[in-house]
């Protein structure tokens, strides 16, 4: 089993910038700099009972399909490594092809049309299945279109912990024109925040700043 990439939240730039050059190791360690004992945040482990894995299998009891579905579900988003494909909701189906000798098919759906991470996700799924000695082909399906509602509740918690504000509820298209509600700061929980840009480092994120704790943060946009 290949080890999943692990990550941890880096100390904020404002903290680092405020430190005098001769700060001693203990002080640095206390705020998580250069301290190997600070736990790395890992994506929550996906098991065969994860709702997305069950849905992808569509009731199949085929043990190889189940192993592949769990492995594919545990692949993480290369841009946001605390989100598994199962929690992100992009794992759609795992099935055997019509041709008897064909590869098992893992169907994914892209989050955004041009998201460059989809290619990496596909390659990682193929690799994760190969670790189990299963040959798979990845296909991308667009229908129905992915929405942030496809993300699990676990995904929201993992994002917040990672320092990214999770997406809010999707506005009711039949309802009144939605007001732009402020987004809660993932660092200090304040609602006193303002959006600094509609676009962030990836298609799925916008940039915000917290007026309470002064930290910048990203928001996973509602889609």
């Amino acid at each position, binding site marked *: 089993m290949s080890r999943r990439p692990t990550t941890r939240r880096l100390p904020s730039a404002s903290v680092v910038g405020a430190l005098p050059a001769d700060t001693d190791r203990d002080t640095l360690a206390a705020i998580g700099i250069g301290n190997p004992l600070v736990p790395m945040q890992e994506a929550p482990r996906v098991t065969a009972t994860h709702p997305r894995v069950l849905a992808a299998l569509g009731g199949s009891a085929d043990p190889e399909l189940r192993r592949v579905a769990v492995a594919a579900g545990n692949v993480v988003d290369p841009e946001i490594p605390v989100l598994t494909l199962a929690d992100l909701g992009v794992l759609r189906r795992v099935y055997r092809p019509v041709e008897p000798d064909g590869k098992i098919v893992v169907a994914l759906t892209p989050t955004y*049309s041009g998201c460059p991470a989809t290619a990496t996700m596909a390659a990682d799924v193929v690799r994760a299945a190969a670790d189990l000695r299963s040959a798979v082909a990845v296909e991308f*399906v*667009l*229908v129905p*279109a992915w*929405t942030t509602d496809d993300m699990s509740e676990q995904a929201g918690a993992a994002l917040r912990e990672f320092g990214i504000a999770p997406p809010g509820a999707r506005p009711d298209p039949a309802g009144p024109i939605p007001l732009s509600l402020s987004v809660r700061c993932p660092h200090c929980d304040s609602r006193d925040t303002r959006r600094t840009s*509609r*676009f962030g480092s990836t*298609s799925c994120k916008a940039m915000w700043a917290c007026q309470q704790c002064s930290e910048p943060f990203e928001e996973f946009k509602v889609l």
Partner: protein
Amino acid sequence: MTPQLVSATAPNGADHAAVPSSRQADMADMADMAEYLLWLGDDALVSAQRLGEWITNAPELEEDVALGNIGLDQLGQARALLSYAGELLGRNEDELAYFRDDVDFRCTHLVSLPRGDFADAVVRLLLVGAYSEQLYAALTTSADERLAGIAAKAIKEVRYHVEHAAGWAVRLGDGTDESHRRMQDALNRAWPYLDELFDPHPLTDHLDGIAVDPATLKEPALQRITAVLDEATLTVPATQRVAGGGRDGRPSEHLGPMLAVMQVLARAHPGASW
């Protein structure tokens, strides 16, 4: 290269072959369908390329990122559309993007205009976005399920792009004398190209139920545009339209030089991957 986008409802070639009498009609339909997909895919691709030119040239870093991201969304839409067209034509998306000449493209003139001022980018994003918003909304109910799926994906992205353009249009249009003047100049430059987007064309009649008659998109798109222009204190120009002809292989004079930049690497090193 990334895996091809496929839909659960990909056309089944075996079914076509089984009924020879309907095959010719199917072939004609496929050619029309491919042509329509080139309309949409080429608009998205060329617009994405122009937006990409803004990276490192926008007025602020956030805007470099924003225009780059919008271009990336459009590039994703273009890939889905051109992959589909390519399957019908027996060519792949890269061949369609890199190995066609300007007269083989089917994009409108508006998307291929040179980068210009930042105000030009804002105006163009607003005009093209308002058109695309109506187009993709209508296509979500296309009888072609694969196209409907691409549209359902694209519409959510395009709405966000239009909001972004509208925000800038109001901020600059209702801003300083200088920003107002530059926005109005940009609007005056772009306006003659707007009508081409809504020109009726026999192709969409052939694809009844699948494609959308562009003329039907004009009124709702103009409503959206003029509402923004009002708020931005900008005036709808009273200018004559230009001839257009992009859908029929008469591209703007600006498309060729843009393609030269976009295609040079793929043509100098055929088969290269990166």
